[in-house]
């Protein structure tokens, strides 16, 4: 890492953009998310546009970093796992059920803490307990 100050500044700035993006796109509204998921009911396709446009810009970043071979202010740390295993599929399936149950995935629910959303204030600590349980399951049985 070349500059710790720049590293922290970029982290904060990236978080800020992420938060504004979640608010502008209205993805912090769990009902909007549930309406996207509910194709055969009150379908609201907004989420797919959020994903598509986010993906496009993110892919430009990936392209840039891969061409340069490294990041500007630190070493590039990309996930190294490549195998498709039962853990990945089971975990993702469980996450999906949880997401569809209440309409919150981790980003939006953290962002919702900003305006004292009582659902988020309950959800986030319980989700962290879930992270801990997930770690334990992984350590003991997998």
């Amino acid at each position, binding site marked *: 890492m070349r500059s710790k100050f720049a*590293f922290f500044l970029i982290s904060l700035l990236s978080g*800020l953009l992420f938060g504004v993006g979640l608010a502008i796109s209205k993805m912090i509204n769990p009902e909007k998310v549930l309406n996207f998921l509910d194709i055969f009911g009150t379908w609201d396709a907004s989420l797919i546009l959020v994903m598509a446009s986010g*993906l496009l810009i993110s892919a430009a970043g990936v392209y840039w970093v891969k061409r340069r071979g490294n990041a500007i202010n*630190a070493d*590039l740390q990309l996930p190294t796992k490549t195998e498709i295993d039962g853990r990945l599929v089971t*975990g993702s399936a469980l996450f999906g059920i949880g997401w569809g149950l209440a309409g919150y995935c981790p980003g939006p629910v953290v962002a919702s803490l900003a305006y004292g959303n009582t659902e988020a204030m309950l959800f986030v600590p319980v989700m962290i307990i*879930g992270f801990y349980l997930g*770690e334990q399951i992984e350590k003991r049985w997998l």
Partner: protein
Amino acid sequence: MTDFTPYSAILGGALIGLAAALLLIFNGRIAGISGIVWNTITQTGWERAWRLFFLLGIVGGTYGWFLLSGETPPIRTGFSTLKLISAALLVGIGTRLGSGCTSGHGICGLARFSKRSLIAVVTFMFTTMLTAGVLRHAL
């Protein structure tokens, strides 16, 4: 009922993508929220600190947007607490086992053409839609 809002969706999505690109280009890190929240708890020193700055940014960005735009934040009332708690546990356990959520696998992983992320996204989009559909129409 919520309206289809294509312009705000594209603009908001672009900002989320920009956030991910910025973190990757400068800091070489993946903007995966589930991992960042968990590592904020388990890591120490500056590995914890940058993640705290990032999360502070998310909350601050959302707060700032509502403060400046004058929009009313969405508040849902009367939602089942039991459902909320079950959902939170499943999201927590699932993203740990599956190594990521919508941001890490969706926005970042798909952008890297990661096969694991593609499998993860297809899997969680399927179970999410199934769950939401069953809850609304079958129960």
